[in-house]
């Protein structure tokens, strides 16, 4: 009996330790994934700065530095508890479990979640939250009033995003319906895209973009910055999609990283072929957008696809993004960085693709996917439109023509991004 009880003790210690080991690995991966998602904010900052004019660079950088900051803080105060209100609100459309962050020992072990501690959970989700607002920032760039944009972003990230996120990831009604969105083609990217669309409509185009029915391109000021941005975003997507496995499970995570990377690659080729073939020149800004298109496209089903399906989804996304950019220009919705095409359109495409490719494919799933897209789209667009409209009616959302011409850097910030360099006057 003595040996037995000893050996039971030993064994339970071992089980404990082993469990801890697995939990520690999972949690480690999730923390790293949070770091990778964090790096996406630098990716967005670089990309958006690179694709806009040098007279608005301080402004773009300012917005992209402040958004993750606001995102994290508001997520700590309300967002996290709105998005994950707990089991009481399962299947619901709204829930809230109180202000602020707090946990005792239970939040720090695998009892909380086999994949991560409470703190890791918050950090990973918090980094996610801010990306939705960052997407908006690119689309409304070069003309939006800084203070109004900050108000919009705060509301959008503190309330809009978590409410929608709760519907699926927080265990809400869309989750019960079987809507599938692995890492957020719809819940993050399209949500950001809808917010952007509302802004773009209410703001109007940048002065000089559409003259006498012709598109007059306003080229971005630094292709190296844009390229750096896209590579960092791709890297960050390793955490965005890979972390959405919510553990370090070798099979699942490694498949997700492969489908993610292949879709990105195929997206680049899709956009390259389209822009080279159809537009006659291999346009780097399109190839960069193609990579992002592939990434956004695969995000909804990254864990449900085989490599070939991932390539097809990405390739189609790469084609879509080019035509979508042309289309938005045709209907005079002015989006300096292509955020609508990348995040909104390809986010919809990716969510829809879960119904036609991969493990979940089928009519039923397709219908659910479409419903999810529609419901989330209607809500988010309305919500965002409401805020933008409210701001337009009160503080205004657009800088003066004078300021737009001179640049928001001088106008909003009183400084210049590149004071040492001679710049070419716009002609």
């Amino acid at each position, binding site marked *: 009996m003595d040996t037995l009880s000893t050996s039971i003790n030993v064994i339970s210690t071992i089980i404990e330790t082993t469990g801890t080991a697995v939990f520690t690995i999972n949690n480690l991966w999730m923390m790293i994934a949070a770091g990778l998602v964090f790096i996406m904010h630098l990716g967005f900052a670089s990309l958006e700065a690179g694709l806009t004019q040098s007279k608005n660079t301080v402004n773009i950088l300012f917005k992209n530095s402040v958004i993750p900051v606001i995102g994290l803080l508001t997520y700590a105060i309300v967002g996290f508890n709105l998005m994950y209100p707990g089991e009481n609100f399962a299947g619901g459309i709204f829930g809230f479990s109180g202000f602020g962050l707090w946990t005792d020992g239970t939040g720090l072990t695998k009892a909380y979640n086999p994949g991560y501690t409470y703190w890791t959970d918050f950090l990973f989700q918090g980094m996610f939250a801010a990306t939705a607002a960052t997407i908006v920032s690119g689309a409304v760039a070069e003309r939006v009033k800084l203070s109004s944009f900050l108000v919009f972003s705060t509301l959008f990230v503190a309330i809009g995003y978590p409410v929608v996120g709760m519907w699926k990831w927080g265990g809400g009604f869309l989750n019960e319906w079987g809507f599938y969105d692995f890492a957020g083609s719809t819940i993050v990217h399209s949500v950001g895209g809808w917010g952007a669309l509302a802004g773009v409509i209410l703001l109007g185009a940048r002065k000089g973009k559409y003259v006498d029915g012709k598109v007059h391109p306003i080229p971005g000021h630094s292709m190296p910055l844009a390229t750096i941005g896209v590579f960092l975003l791709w890297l960050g997507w390793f955490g965005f999609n890979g972390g959405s496995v919510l553990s370090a499970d070798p099979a699942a995570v490694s498949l997700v990283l492969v489908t993610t990377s292949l879709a990105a690659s195929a997206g680049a080729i899709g956009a390259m072929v389209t822009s080279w073939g159809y537009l006659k020149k291999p346009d780097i800004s399109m190839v960069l957008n193609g990579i992002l298109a592939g990434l956004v496209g695969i995000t909804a089903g990254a864990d449900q696809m085989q490599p070939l399906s991932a390539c097809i989804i990405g390739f189609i996304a790469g084609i879509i993004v080019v035509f979508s950019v042309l289309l938005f220009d045709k209907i005079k919705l002015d989006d300096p960085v292509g955020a609508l095409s990348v995040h909104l359109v390809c986010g919809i495409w990716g969510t829809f693709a879960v119904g036609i490719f991969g493990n979940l494919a089928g009519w039923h799933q397709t219908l659910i996917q479409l419903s999810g897209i529609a419901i989330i789209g209607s809500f988010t667009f309305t919500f965002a439109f409401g805020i933008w409209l409210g701001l337009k009616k009160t503080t205004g959302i657009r800088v003066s023509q004078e300021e737009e011409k001179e640049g928001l850097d*001088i106008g909003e910030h*009183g*400084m210049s991004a590149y004071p040492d360099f*001679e710049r*070419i*006057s*716009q*002609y």
Partner: protein
Amino acid sequence: MKKIEAIIRPFKLEDVHNELQESGFGGLTVTEVKGYGRQKGHKEIYRGSEYNIEFVPKLKIELVCSDELLEKAIEIIITKSKTGEVGDGKIFILPVDEAIRIRTEESGIAAI
């Protein structure tokens, strides 16, 4: 022959240039310059200290033309670059002794 040197607001170049072109002025040269005048520059702030950027970005158009066409060119430039606000710029007329087209070595009016 005369040389027109016009200091204008950068964003007016397109209008001026289009009109000149349509009226048959086949060439001109543009330089980025910085101007000081009644139009004041702006303040910038950096790390808590303000400072003045006293010079305002302007473009200088240089256009050499025959004495006959001078009036017309001046008129176009004035019409197309005037906003009525301080800072519209100046036009200076300078005498030119000779003009040569490098490619053909033609000189005089034929060169411009």
